[in-house]
């Protein structure tokens, strides 16, 4: 089966760099499946689950926005943050979600505070969802 190089990097670290068979990414306009020999593409990503298919296995990552570039020779994901499903600390994500909700319910915030809280709420929700889906998949297998 043909494969394509996938690089996922965040500002803090290089998360993933391997040859894969398929990438399914959360594009701003919906899920986006990329196979080798895809035409060059440049898109923004929204917070969501990024799935990678490789050798019959599936790896799942939680990302919180970023960019995706498909080049003739490789796929580059510039993520604002990215974690593998098995790295996600569910308790911490729950805690972050609770805190963000609390902050959002408080009155008299500036617009910037509010959008920061909203962003962190979105991030924690995505983390929880990805961790949950990965757990379910493991149970099925």
């Amino acid at each position: 089966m043909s494969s394509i190089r996938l690089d996922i990097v965040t500002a803090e670290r290089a998360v993933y760099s391997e040859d894969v068979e398929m990438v399914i990414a959360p594009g701003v306009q919906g899920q986006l499946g990329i196979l080798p020999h895809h035409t060059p593409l440049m898109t923004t990503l929204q917070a969501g689950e990024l799935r990678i298919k490789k050798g019959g296995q599936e790896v799942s990552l939680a990302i919180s926005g970023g960019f995706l570039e498909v080049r003739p020779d490789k796929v580059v994901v510039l993520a604002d943050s990215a974690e593998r499903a098995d790295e996600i600390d569910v308790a911490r994500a729950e805690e972050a979600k609770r805190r963000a909700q609390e902050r959002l319910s408080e009155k008299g915030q500036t617009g910037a505070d509010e959008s920061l809280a909203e962003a962190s709420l979105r991030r924690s929700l995505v983390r929880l969802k990805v961790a949950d889906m990965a757990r379910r998949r493991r149970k099925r297998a």
Partner: protein
Amino acid sequence: MADIRAVRRRIKGVQNTAKITKAMEMVAASKMKRAQERGLAGRPYAEKIQQVIADLAALSGETGALHPLLQSRPATRTVLVHITPDRGLCGGLNANINRMAAGFILEQKVPVRLIAVGRKGLDFMRRHRRDILAEFTQLGDRPGFLETLPISRIIIDEYTSGKVDQVHLVYTRFISTMLQQPAIRQLLPVEPSSTPGVQNVDYIYEPDPGAVLNELLPRFVEMEVYHAILESIASEQSARMVAMRNATENAKELVSELTLLYNKARQESITTELLDIVGGAVALS
């Protein structure tokens, strides 16, 4: 006698200096470790986003600029973002970076304005009466991404509004603990990629070029500035640690030389006293 006391005082003084430099060395060493990790961890992202942007710039060279930040204009005014530490005592690092920035400014045929990040560069440019557009000091040893955003904001605003046509970045590139190099790079306009084959590719943009570039290009500038600052901090702490280690070693060497001198002087004085006593005793008998 007075001589011996002076030497003893000197030894004490040098020992105290050594204690201070040793402490600074250890502080810098612990900060260095974290700063290096942060600087190196950000490299893949910075390199990847550079590639992506360079491809886009190559494309827009053919099809016309797709975004104000990709627009290339004849250079009539330049901005230099001068990234330096706030503090000294880090070997030749400050002198090197300032020299490189000064060399660059003198080479330019167009007026250069400065965005000074860090007190050392700011002071240097003030002393030479340069045109300072903005100054950022006290970013600390571990600035967060958000704290560096105002710097990028100014760069983007100045460039988009056409007040400047070129933006360069001068910072200290971290190579290893022993080696840091001042580096100068053109940030805007983006230099097109020279990779063959990429130029003729038609990209699909989702949702559309404007929307993607509107997010991507500011992010690019922000990341570049942030990353340059992280590299500079890693360089600063490394240079300081090495400088302080050398200072401590020099002080120790000086102490051992002075101790030798002190002991010699002490023995000499004892010998002279003994001779006096023996001489006196002989004269009496």
